[in-house]
């Protein structure tokens, strides 16, 4: 049997990234710069939260975890394992789009790799999720390329957004000190280092078409800590808002 604690740790990281990024996406509802974009971020929010739910359900059904809703809305901040990238406030549209681009490609290579996982629930869930993600990366690529080729100002803003976001995005691939070797050995997934390489291979061609310059990777310091429960000051208010209705009456039936 595959190491249960190692699996649980990996699923929580993935699910929390989905949930928190999903919540950030939902913050564009009603505020998007044009109607189609408002709809796009709202739809991606719904997808992501659905993906979080599917992952939490694996915890619940296969690994003795809590009910997915309670797990999502009633945990303390330090028990969350999302990356700092997903916690950051939306800021302006350039940052939101760049994060969306970097994050969705990171998720894509992860779910693609899980097609080969030794853990059956991963093989099942990743098939569906990677298909849905196609539309997220399609959307992200289109905007990165268009805005980078549109005007001097939009190009400069996309380049700045990339420079500001790359270290946060690299932090998505923070390995677990305790479980990484086990997960790789048991062939649950290929490991963070390999996923990082695959991610770079995926984003490079889009950056080239956008004429954006990738910051020198050996000079960036990936932003770590999220996977260990250390978070930015932005997460606590997000969790409070996200769980506000649920926590009014945790026994209510929906």
């Amino acid at each position, binding site marked *: 049997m595959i190491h249960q604690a190692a699996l649980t740790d990996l699923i929580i990281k993935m699910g929390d990234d989905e949930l928190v990024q999903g919540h950030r996406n939902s913050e564009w509802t009603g505020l998007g710069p044009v109607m189609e974009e408002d709809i*796009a971020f709202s739809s991606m929010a*719904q*997808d992501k939260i*659905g993906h979080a*739910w599917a992952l939490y359900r694996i915890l619940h059904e296969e690994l003795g975890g809590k009910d997915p809703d309670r797990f999502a809305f009633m945990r303390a901040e330090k028990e969350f394992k999302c990356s700092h990238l997903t916690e950051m406030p939306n800021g302006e549209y350039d940052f939101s789009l760049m994060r969306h681009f970097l994050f969705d490609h990171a998720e894509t290579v992860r779910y693609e790799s899980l097609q080969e996982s030794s853990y059956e629930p991963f093989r099942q869930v990743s098939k569906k999720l990677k298909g849905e993600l*196609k*539309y997220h990366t399609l*959307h992200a690529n289109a905007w990165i390329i268009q805005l980078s080729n549109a005007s001097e100002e939009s190009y400069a803003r996309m380049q700045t957004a990339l420079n500001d976001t790359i270290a946060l995005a690299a932090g998505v691939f923070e390995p677990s000190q305790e479980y990484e070797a086990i997960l790789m050995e048991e062939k649950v997934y290929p490991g963070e280092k390999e996923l990082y390489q695959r991610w770079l291979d995926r984003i490079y061609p889009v950056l080239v078409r956008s004429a954006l310059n990738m910051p020198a990777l050996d000079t960036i310091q990936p932003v770590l800590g999220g996977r260990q429960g250390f978070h930015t000051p932005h997460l606590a208010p997000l969790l409070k808002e996200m769980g506000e209705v649920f926590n009014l009456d945790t026994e209510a039936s929906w």
Partner: protein
Amino acid sequence: MPATTSLEAVYKSLEHVMDPEIPVLSVMDLGMITGVEMTSDDEVHIKMIPTFAACPAVSFIQQGIKTTVEKELGISVTVEVDKNTHWQSNRMTDTAREKLKNFGIAPPQLLQGEVRAEIMLNTPCPHCGSEHTYLRSPFGSTLCRAIHYCKSCGQVFEQFKPLE
């Protein structure tokens, strides 16, 4: 009512369970049913799958299946979400594609392998049939739809997205 309900009768009844977001399509048209099994003379177990993982209508559809089949056939119905099969747009029947088009929504392209960005180009307009169209957004009013624009008839139209 016959003593034993036939599988055929159950499938027939399922044709009356409509999708809440696209009311011209039944759960059969959409290919959402993955298994029907008579567990006794008056009990049936039905397995279904949602189109998208976050489909908000899943429990509504499950309830619709139960209520409709129980009412029409007078048998007891249990409905389960099937985790071993995942929905692909190729599961949609030809009749469903035709009904969608007549409803004003472009049907998904038949997929050979994976979804690629190019497949979303030149989607035929459900109103005038022109392929002089472009993708405006891969997201629409529900998770399963994309928005296109037809340059021939000047109308915005929705498409049921291909899903691999």
